[in-house]
């Protein structure tokens, strides 16, 4: 029998703690494949965020650190500046990157830190129970917007990637999604490109935003959640390359 698909070595062979239909597993696999394809496992250091992906090191078989909420870009700065030969990536959710860590990501990009950021946007705080995130779309019901997000009290969804793309220090910014196999392939290409830039010594920060499903806190089936990304979320967060 011919093997047409197999687990990539950097993705550990273990049961997942993520909910059914969650997008983190897909994103983890794409990162693991990238690391293996580029042959950089032995010099990669990953940063896990506070949030559901805090246990990312249980799946990604590289050196990893767990850091305070929102601070991965600062930690990555400390790592990369002292270890220019290492490949440093942070894996951050929307609460981490777009709320509490807004200053850290803006300034890491502003300084042109040579790091790679994988930004998982699922429009909600997952681990704490589905509260509103800065990226929650208008009308979306969450644990803290029971009537749906309204501009008058909660403001507008925050498009961090667009903000970052304005900064000269951010050399590559792309928004992707994982709502169907074609999009997953595009996301893989983007993640690989972001890592390749760092490997090649490109002078600046590379970021890939991934629109990712959270069926549990969107109160949808996994299939409906994928459809919601395609039909609703992409209206607020259009896919495509924003920079680079």
């Amino acid at each position: 029998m011919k093997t047409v698909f197999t687990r990539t070595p950097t993705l550990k062979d273990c049961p997942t703690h993520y909910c059914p239909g969650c997008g983190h597993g897909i994103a983890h696999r794409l990162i693991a494949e990238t690391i293996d394809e580029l042959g950089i496992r032995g010099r990669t250091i990953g940063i896990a965020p506070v949030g559901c992906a805090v246990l990312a090191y249980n799946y990604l078989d590289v050196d990893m650190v767990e850091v305070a909420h929102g601070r991965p870009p600062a930690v990555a700065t400390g790592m990369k500046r002292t270890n220019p030969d290492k490949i440093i990536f942070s894996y951050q959710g929307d609460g981490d990157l777009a709320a509490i860590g807004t200053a850290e990501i803006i300034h890491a990009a502003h300084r042109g830190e040579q790091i790679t950021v994988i930004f998982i946007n699922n429009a909600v705080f997952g681990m704490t129970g589905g509260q509103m995130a800065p990226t929650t779309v208008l009308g979306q019901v969450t644990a803290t917007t029971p009537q749906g997000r309204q501009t008058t009290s909660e403001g507008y969804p925050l498009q961090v990637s667009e903000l970052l793309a304005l900064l000269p220090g951010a050399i590559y910014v792309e928004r992707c999604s994982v709502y169907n196999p074609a999009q997953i392939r595009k996301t893989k290409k983007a993640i690989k490109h972001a890592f390749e830039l760092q490997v090649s010594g490109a002078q600046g920060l590379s970021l890939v935003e991934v629109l990712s499903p959270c069926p549990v806190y969107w109160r949808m089936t996994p299939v409906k959640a994928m459809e919601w990304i395609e039909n609703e979320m992409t209206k607020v967060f259009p896919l495509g390359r924003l920079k680079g």
Partner: protein
Amino acid sequence: MSERILMCGNEALAEAAIIAGVDAYFGYPITPQNEIPAYMSRRMPEEGRVFVQSESELAAINMVFGASATGKRAMTTSSSPGISLMQEGISYLAGAELPAVVVNVMRGGPGLGNIAPSQGDYFQATRGGGHGDYRTIVFGPSSVQELVNCIPLAFDLADEYRMTVVVLADGILGQMMEPIVLEKKPRRKLPAKDWALTGAKDREQNIVRSLWLPEGALEKHNYKLKAKYEQVQKNEVICEQYEVDDAEIIVVAYGVAARIVRGAVNKAREEGIKVGWIRPVTLWPFPTEQISKAADELRIFLTVEMSCGQMVEDVKLAIAGKAPVVLYGRPGGSIPTVEEILDKIKQLTIPTKRAK
């Protein structure tokens, strides 16, 4: 370098850190320690090492966290309000057992306070400061030379015990110029940093973490930290004593306040008053045993601090009711004078005993 040179405390401690092998310095401007980042911005690149001016103290301590997680010697410096912002990171450093050196050139508080020298951050430094069950080693140097001397020791202790070492200076020490000798000292025998994140080449992955979710796992981790802190308490206390043996009054003070106390005690001795002093150099671990032992004789203790009274609580804990403890504190950036302390000592003299 072994000749005597004249340097202000801030620049002297920065150079001492370079001599001690600091790989990376991260900092954010705040008075009265601005000479440190300015000095480092010039000297670190000269040495081929890392200097980054961060966007905040939060970022600075997390940059330290990142560099330290890869096994590098990293430090940051700030002053009181900035140190408050760093407490989150210091708690994470404690949880993840990462070495770090943090210098606090204290100023008056609370809030924005002022930019005058103070000792108002004693509680914050010696009680951990951030959330959770942890300790930091704290030095309270009282001269620029001692400030310089404690820097290499701070890096060694940080590496040996994998914890944060806080150097608690103040605006006077930071700004004051004194003659110093800068010398490279041999490092302690330090354990290999086999836990560091260096890329999992030809080995299993390393994970640096502070999250322990399974039932009982964090308790076990806390006990491990506790055992380490007990070793520090057992082995690393530094304390100076002067004219304690025949003293009826013992003045306890640290840092710059201890220098003023020294002057007051000398004057009091000239007047025939039997007074001595004890000066904790490490504020945590605190010289509990030394102070407790001194309290076995019939004596009065006077604690002098540039605060409303913080270290006095540790003095009282050490003495455990065996002797009276009086406080003389000047908060808000005010500095006690030799005369004020001398007056206080005189008020405490026991005329009947002195007459003997």
